[in-house]
């Protein structure tokens, strides 16, 4: 009976609840959250997210038994003007349900973790009032993400797309009075939003072109439309692909729009884990996978995507090598891994890309949350070590200030190690399988791409080793690290769950079993699994171990001392500086984009607007004044002057009459 119920197709109508549960959660917290107390408030938010997960799971079960074409459920009409018909439609298919599960699953774990983390964080930042606000934002985020993945039209996807951008903005700026000069976080938030907006511009233009070409924004109708013919049609398809790519580079932090993600680390760590590692940033990958039929229409579009992803993967990995901030390393690592995913979906390896997306969600969320655990543990140590001199500048995120934590924070250490190994791509952890699949595809695509991705994988293993050693091994380099303490179970239990997932996540799509492949094939047609190759797997594994070994070679043999120069810097010199300074991308943007815009605005606002345009308008006024003053001179008040005027007039009229 129960089985029958949950496998029935009617269950799929519940889809809108993945949006409503978080909405209800956030409304409860918005209205009475402050009165509920921290535990209850966080609990409600977690419950809302958890219920969304349960709903998604029910959908999964039901969908498994009803494998026919995508199910679309209409909630309400939205915009209906002439040919533009967009509704609040939810799409249930394997791809969307997969994303829902990842989002709500990882999301719920992070919610639970945040109950503990934020408890300490709001006290560290001296504003406990803001506790509830955090969970409101988090639920809003889950809601927006659900809209993004469950949408049936590009426009509705776009709502979620910008909605998560908003949440990202709010959460990066959560401590908006903190950061450099008291506005650092606020500026980082703004930067994230605006950079994302540039990407969204691409999304918008792509949508307009899609609408113009296919006459609809609904996935079903667009994908059913078929490849446009003719020279123009070809260019339109390429245009759509490229503008979608721009959107992807914005949201998924690819070249050239990745700059916001490292700064986004200003947000509380659970935010970095949920939004800036596991879910939101993967929306770009999802978008490409979702738009697979469009990308399949041209060869150039997906190639561009693949190359952007590949280059980003390598580029970001090099920067990660030179960072000292524990979260920045992870941030660049995320960019790099997103590059892998984007490259995968660009190559047409949609399943591989989605697979990596899932495993990455597990281990990167794990890494970030553990990093948060480290930071809070060290903050604890800092507060207990520095009773007197409280205001001394101390950065708990700087890896140079840490060290030796493996003894003090045992759980955190072990789960971190699991995450790092999974990221490095060590078999049989989750990361190995997904990354291997991508690399295998790359070999079939282009040897250079293959080489670049392998190199990126090598760097990945290298910087993770570097990080693990700097943070957990050696001696504690500061009193704070000395006094670090493990966190309560509310934080460690989600870590352990994630660690387990990171270990076994690879089972989702084992070679020759390919569960995920078959599951997603129902939605994304014409994707074939890469032939599992022991050679490639061996090479990939060797690269991972090579990275780890060389990491150990530089950072493991000798303990890091406070104030020392990075050993790699001694070897690489200026090249390392390039990595450390992030290739000066921010500076380049500043000089070539921001400053010109500011200058142009200043010119428009002051000389053009005030002087030229307003001046012209006022000038007209002044001219009128001058003319009237000039005419006023004629108005002498002497009657005889007026008489002269009359007389002149008489003469003139006479003259006219004569000569007529």
């Amino acid at each position: 009976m129960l089985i029958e119920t949950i496998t029935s197709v009617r269950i799929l109508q519940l889809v809108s609840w993945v949006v409503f549960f978080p909405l209800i959660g956030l409304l409860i917290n918005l209205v009475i959250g402050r009165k509920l107390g921290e535990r209850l408030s966080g609990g409600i938010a977690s419950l809302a997210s958890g219920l969304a997960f349960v709903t998604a799971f029910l959908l999964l079960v039901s969908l498994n038994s009803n494998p026919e074409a995508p199910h679309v459920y209409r909630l309400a009409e939205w915009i209906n003007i002439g040919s533009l018909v967009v509704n609040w439609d939810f799409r249930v298919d394997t791809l969307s349900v997969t994303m829902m599960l990842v989002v709500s699953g990882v999301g719920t774990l992070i919610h639970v973790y945040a109950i503990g983390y934020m408890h300490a964080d709001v006290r560290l930042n001296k504003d406990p009032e803001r506790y509830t606000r955090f969970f409101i934002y988090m639920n809003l985020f889950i809601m927006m993400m659900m809209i993004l993945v469950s949408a049936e039209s590009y426009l509705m996807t776009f709502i979620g797309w910008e909605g998560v951008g908003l949440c990202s903005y709010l959460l990066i700026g959560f401590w908006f009075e903190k950061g450099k000069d008291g506005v650092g976080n606020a500026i980082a938030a703004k930067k994230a939003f605006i950079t994302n907006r540039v990407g969204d511009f691409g999304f918008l233009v792509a949508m307009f072109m899609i609408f113009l070409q296919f006459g609809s924004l609904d996935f079903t109708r667009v994908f059913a439309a078929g490849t446009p013919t003719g020279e123009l049609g070809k260019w339109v398809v390429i245009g759509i692909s490229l503008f979608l790519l721009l959107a992807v580079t914005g949201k998924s932090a690819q070249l050239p729009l990745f700059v916001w993600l490292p700064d986004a680390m200003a947000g509380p760590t659970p935010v970095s884990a949920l939004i800036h590692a596991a879910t939101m940033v993967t929306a770009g990958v999802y978008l490409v996978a979702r738009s697979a039929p469009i990308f399949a229409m041209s060869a150039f579009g997906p190639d561009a995507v693949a190359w952007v992803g590949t280059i980003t993967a390598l580029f970001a990995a090099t920067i990660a090598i030179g960072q000292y901030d524990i979260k920045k390393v992870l941030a660049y690592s995320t960019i790099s891994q997103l590059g892998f995913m984007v490259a995968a979906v660009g190559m047409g390896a949609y399943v591989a890309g989605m697979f990596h997306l899932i495993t990455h969600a597990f281990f990167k969320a794990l890494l970030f949350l553990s990093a948060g655990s480290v930071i809070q543990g060290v903050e604890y140590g800092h507060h207990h070590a520095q009773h007197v001199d409280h205001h001394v500048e101390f950065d708990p995120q700087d890896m140079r200030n840490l060290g030796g934590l493996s003894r003090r924070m045992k759980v955190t250490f072990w789960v971190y190690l699991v995450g790092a190994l999974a990221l490095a791509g060590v078999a049989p952890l989750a990361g190995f399988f997904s990354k291997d699949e991508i690399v295998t595809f790359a070999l079939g695509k282009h040897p250079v791409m293959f080489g670049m991705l392998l190199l990126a994988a090598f760097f990945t293993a290298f910087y993770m080793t570097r990080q693990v050693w700097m943070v957990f091994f050696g001696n504690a380099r500061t009193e704070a690290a000395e006094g670090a303490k493990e966190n309560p179970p509310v934080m460690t239990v989600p870590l352990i769950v994630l660690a387990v997932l990171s270990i076994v996540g690879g089972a989702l799509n084992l070679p020759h079993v390919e569960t995920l492949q078959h599951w997603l094939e129902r939605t994304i047609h014409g994707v074939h699994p890469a032939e599992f190759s022991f050679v490639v797997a061996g090479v990939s594994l060797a690269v991972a171990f090579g990275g780890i070994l060389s990491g150990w070679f530089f950072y493991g043999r000798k303990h890091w001392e406070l104030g020392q120069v990075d050993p790699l810097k001694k070897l690489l010199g200026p090249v390392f500086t390039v990595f450390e300074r992030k290739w000066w991308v921010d500076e380049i943007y500043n000089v070539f984009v921001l400053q010109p815009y500011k200058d142009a605005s200043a010119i428009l606002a002051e000389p053009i607007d005030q002087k030229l345009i307003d001046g012209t308008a006022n000038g007209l006024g002044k001219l009128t004044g001058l003319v009237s003053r000039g005419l006023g001179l004629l108005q002498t008040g002497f009657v005889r002057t007026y008489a002269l005027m009359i007389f002149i007039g008489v003469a003139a009229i006479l003259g006219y009459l004569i000569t007529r």
Partner: protein
Amino acid sequence: MNTIPMSYFLVLSAIMFSLGAIGVITRRNPLVIFMSLELMFNAANLTFVAFSNAFGNANGQIFVFFVMVVAAAEVAVGLALIVAIFRARGSIDIDLMSSMKN
């Protein structure tokens, strides 16, 4: 031919009229201005009478009569004004009478 062309009278009238106008415009003494004004009336009257003769119609002369009456009235009032102004200001130079302007 004992006739005189009409044009001669008109030209004479025009000359007198212009002289009168020049007087009005250039002189600063209101008395002279009034006299010039009278000259202009006179010029106009001359035309009336000339046309009256040319057309053999007496109506023109009636108008001259009316013009004279009005001129007389105007002179009476005008001179009274001048006297009043002279009493108020001690001078009748009209360049000093520009209180209309600011």
